[in-house]
């Protein structure tokens, strides 16, 4: 199993535990080592003492043996004693032994005759035991430990020679506790000494016949002091084998010293060591804890600061000292400042418009949400005003982007000045937005008007004088929407409404606008299917050639026969088709369809098809025209493409190049709606149009406004001078016709002659006008 330190949530705890643990471990090892040394020393001391005592015992044993042996020898040689033994004078022998027992202070003294007869022992059992010793004496043994009288005894024998061997005089001394006490007192330490004898079953019993039982075989075999376990606990013991007489059980002197006694003197030392180690651990814990705190306090501060930094707060930690931690704190502060700076910049970039410095759409929406939430709490209303410059695109296209940019910056400033309490943002392009909280005496209308007026003063940019105008759409929370996006969308719808209604004004959002938007989306999806389903149809409105007094051409007009809604006006679906790009396919279809019809008409009758600027932007227009002419076989000169000035607003050489290439096919190019918008004479110079169509607005005013006649006159004169034909649109009255004829207009178009009609009606009209053609058709 791997040892793993528990995980701590605090560095300080970890350090304290680690150091205290290490110190404790070291202290433990030192203590254990000291304990072991102490114990070993104590053991050694006891061992050497035991060895010394053992040696003393050896000497004592020898001395005693020699002393008693000497005494026995002396008696054995005493002539009278020998005579008594040799002659079997038992009374004399017993008295002599008694005398000797008293003199030598030995408990047992007796004589063993050569015939094994024992004299001097009254107890029959003991006498029997003594008789057993004859063998050993006969074998020449004179000293040893035997079992005699139920106890281990040391016997010393001396042969009685008279002069031949007639027997042995034997002394036996006790080896019991009383005898051993003398030995114990000789030792420097209170050694326990006892003689053990081995039983046949391997047990060793105490010499005095006591009940002590011990396993001593290995200790006796060892011969050195060893540790053994006694009933008093562990002890150091030395067993000295004692010479045993033949036939007697093995005996040993066991010198023993309980380890507990040996170590008693060292207990205080051991306790002291343990106490010192414990105090050391406690001191280490306290010291480490304090030290770790001084280290970790700055780290903890940094940790907390880093967490606050991560949460997005601005933070700064106190710098303490000049060490690594101090430098780290400094670095951290620099880093935090850097992060704050960068965040500021990123935030600015993310939420502000680079050109004007105004908040961008994202910030606008965020602020709007904020305002809406505040409104929810405080009540009242929040108004969003979408401000869009009218015809800004023209400025950009004609005067260049730098001028346009400068204009946007100026408008931004003007809006900010006008809406002092509002929040002004640039949503993109020429679209601005303002958030305000209208008050009782500060209605939205007043601000809208103020903004419109603020925009309008003349701007002078790089020598150009510009007169900007703006349109405004207004949506007000909570009525017009509860969330920012809805509110903005509705303001935008209102803005579009303003544009539709003629610009330079403002509109409030109405639910109808939303419905219109939905209607428009429906229209868009229907429109996508319409071409596939063949729901489109071309109607034709004749253009009457005033010079020849006949129909010169037809303008093809798109009609959409919606399956459920009936006919839908081009005014309604063409803008949608243009916005979605569907106009490209629809326009191509119109060109082909127009050619299909026109090729059946009389040779002098042309067909005119309107081409959207969108078609000009997308590639493939000339291919569509070429293919339509090729498949129908229509003379190119009989196809007239009507374009509006707006294609020039895209203002590129590519447009002119496309016009020239179409013209080079032989196709005629007419300029439609001339006189409206940014009509510029420079267009007439840049391209040799075949025809100019004078906008209906001039024709309508022709009889009522004096200037109108002059304009029409000027246009026709200009066209004639440039070799272009002219067509007047929207002619409804014969007076108008007369006036136009008077001014030299080439052709006229309008209800005066015919409203747009379907192809069958065209055939009828042409047949009516030209019976010859009719005949040809009928014949063909």
């Amino acid at each position, binding site marked *: 199993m791997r040892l793993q330190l528990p995980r701590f949530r605090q560095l300080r705890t970890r350090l304290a535990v680690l150091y205290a643990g290490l110190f404790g471990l070291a202290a433990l090892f030192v203590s254990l080592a000291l304990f072991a040394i102490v114990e070993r020393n104590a053991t050694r001391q006891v061992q050497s003492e035991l060895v010394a005592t053992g040696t003393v015992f050896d000497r004592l044993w020898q001395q005693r*043996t*020699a002393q008693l*042996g*000497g005494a*026995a*020898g002396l008696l054995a*040689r005493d*002539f009278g004693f*020998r*005579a008594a033994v*040799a*002659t079997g004078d038992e009374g004399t022998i017993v008295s002599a032994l008694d005398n000797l027992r008293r003199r030598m202070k030995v408990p047992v003294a007796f004589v063993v005759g050569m015939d094994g007869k024992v004299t001097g022992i009254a107890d029959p059992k003991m006498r029997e035991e003594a008789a057993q010793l004859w063998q050993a004496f*006969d074998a*020449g043994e*004179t*000293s040893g430990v035997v079992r005699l009288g139920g106890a281990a005894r040391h016997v*010393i024998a*001396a*042969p009685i*020679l*008279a*002069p*031949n*061997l*007639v027997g042995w005089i034997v002394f036996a001394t006790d080896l019991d506790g009383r005898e051993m006490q003398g030995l114990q007192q000789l030792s420097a330490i209170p050694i326990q000494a006892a003689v053990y004898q081995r039983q046949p079953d391997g047990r060793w019993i105490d010499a005095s016949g006591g009940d002590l039982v011990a396993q001593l075989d290995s200790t006796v075999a060892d011969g050195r002091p060893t540790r053994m376990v006694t009933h008093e606990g562990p002890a150091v013991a030395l067993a000295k084998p004692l010479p045993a007489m033949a036939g007697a059980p093995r005996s040993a002197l066991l010198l023993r010293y309980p380890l507990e006694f040996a170590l008693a003197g060292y207990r205080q030392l051991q306790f002291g060591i343990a106490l010192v180690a414990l105090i050391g651990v406690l001191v280490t814990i306290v010291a480490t804890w304090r030290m770790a705190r001084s280290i970790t306090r700055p780290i903890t501060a940094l940790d907390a600061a880093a967490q606050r930094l991560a949460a997005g707060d601005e933070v700064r930690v106190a710098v303490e000292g000049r060490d690594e931690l101090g430098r780290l704190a400094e670095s951290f502060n620099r880093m935090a400042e850097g992060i704050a700076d960068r965040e500021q910049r990123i935030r600015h970039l993310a939420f502000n418009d680079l050109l004007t410095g105004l908040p961008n759409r994202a910030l606008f929406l965020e602020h709007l949400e904020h305002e809406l939430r505040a409104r929810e709490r405080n009540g009242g209303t929040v108004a969003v005003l979408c401000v869009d410059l009218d015809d800004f695109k023209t400025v950009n296209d004609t005067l260049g982007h730098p001028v346009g940019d400068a204009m946007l910056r100026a408008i931004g400033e003007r809006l900010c000045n006008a809406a002092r309490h509002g929040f002004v943002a640039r949503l993109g392009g020429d679209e601005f937005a303002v958030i305000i909280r209208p008050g009782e005496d500060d209605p939205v209308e007043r601000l809208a008007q103020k903004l419109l007026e603020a925009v309008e003063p003349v701007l002078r940019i790089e020598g150009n004088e510009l007169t900007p105008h703006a349109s405004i759409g207004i949506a007000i929370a909570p009525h017009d929407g509860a969330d920012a996006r809805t509110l903005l969308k509705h303001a935008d719808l209102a803005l579009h409404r303003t544009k539709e209604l003629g610009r330079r004004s403002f509109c409030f959002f109405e639910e109808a606008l939303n419905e219109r938007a939905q209607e428009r989306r429906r229209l868009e999806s229907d429109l996508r299917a319409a071409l596939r389903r063949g729901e489109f149809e071309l109607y034709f409105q004749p253009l009457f050639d005033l010079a020849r007094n006949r129909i010169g051409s037809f303008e093809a007009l798109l009609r959409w026969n919606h399956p459920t809604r009936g006919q839908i006006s081009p005014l309604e679906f063409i803008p949608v088709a243009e916005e979605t790009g569907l106009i490209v396919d629809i326009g191509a279809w119109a060109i082909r369809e127009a050619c299909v019809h026109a090729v059946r008409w009389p040779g002098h009758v042309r067909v005119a098809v309107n081409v959207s600027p969108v078609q000009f932007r997308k590639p493939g227009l000339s291919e569509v025209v070429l293919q339509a002419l090729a498949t129908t076989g229509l003379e190119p000169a009989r196809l007239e493409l009507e374009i509006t000035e707006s294609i020039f607003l895209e203002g590129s050489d590519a447009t002119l190049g496309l016009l020239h290439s179409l013209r080079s096919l032989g196709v005629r190019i007419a300029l439609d709606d001339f006189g409206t918008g940014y009509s510029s004479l420079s267009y007439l110079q840049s391209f040799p149009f075949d025809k100019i169509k004078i906008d209906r607005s001039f024709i309508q005013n022709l009889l009522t406004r004096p200037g109108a006649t002059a304009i029409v006159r000027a246009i026709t004169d200009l066209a004639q001078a440039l070799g272009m034909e002219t067509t007047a649109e929207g002619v409804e009255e014969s007076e108008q016709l007369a006036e136009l004829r008077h001014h030299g207009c080439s052709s006229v178009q309008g209800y005066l002659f015919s409203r747009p009609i379907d192809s069958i009606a065209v055939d009828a009209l042409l047949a009516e006008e030209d019976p010859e053609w009719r005949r040809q058709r009928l014949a063909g």
Partner: protein
Amino acid sequence: MRVPFLFAVVLLTPGLATPVAPGGVTINVRGADGKPVRDAVVTVHLAGRATPPPQAPGVDYVVSQKDIQFHPFVLVVPTGSQVAFPNLDPVRHQVYSFSAAKRFELKLYAKEQNRSVQFDKPGVVALGCNIHDQMTAFIDVVDTPWAAKTDAQGNVVLNGVPAGTVTVAIWHPYLRAPGNSLSKTVALGAGGVRDSFTVALRSPPRMGGDY
């Protein structure tokens, strides 16, 4: 110097009908280690028959004391013999015996003094000197005409023994056996008999040795 003393009996006891075996009884005594044992006394008694008394007691039996030793170490004498104990040493000796066969004590006597003791009972008499413990000698008082001690080669030849079953006994002061004696019965033919004893000896008691 101890000379093996042999008294070969040539005379036949009167009235003894059995012819003497010419080959005699030849006995060899060896220790357990195979070495010859000298000073072992070999006696022959007739089995099932009365053994004739030994020859008339001799006169020249001597156990002298010289160089604090008895000489000879073992002396074989017939019952009733007189043994002289001359002291040839410059010191005094006190010769004694506690043996059952003959208990006597010759009080201290000096050089050139001679004492005699008559040994009238058969048996071994251990001699000691009460002054010098190391002095030991043995007199084997025998009641048979056929007795002798082994020579240095452990041999004894006893002639003049009548053929038939005889008991041969050996005795040695240190023989490890009851009474320091062993015996066996052998059949003695006309050509004599040759036999041997292998004995275990205990070491001589060392006087004044260490204990």
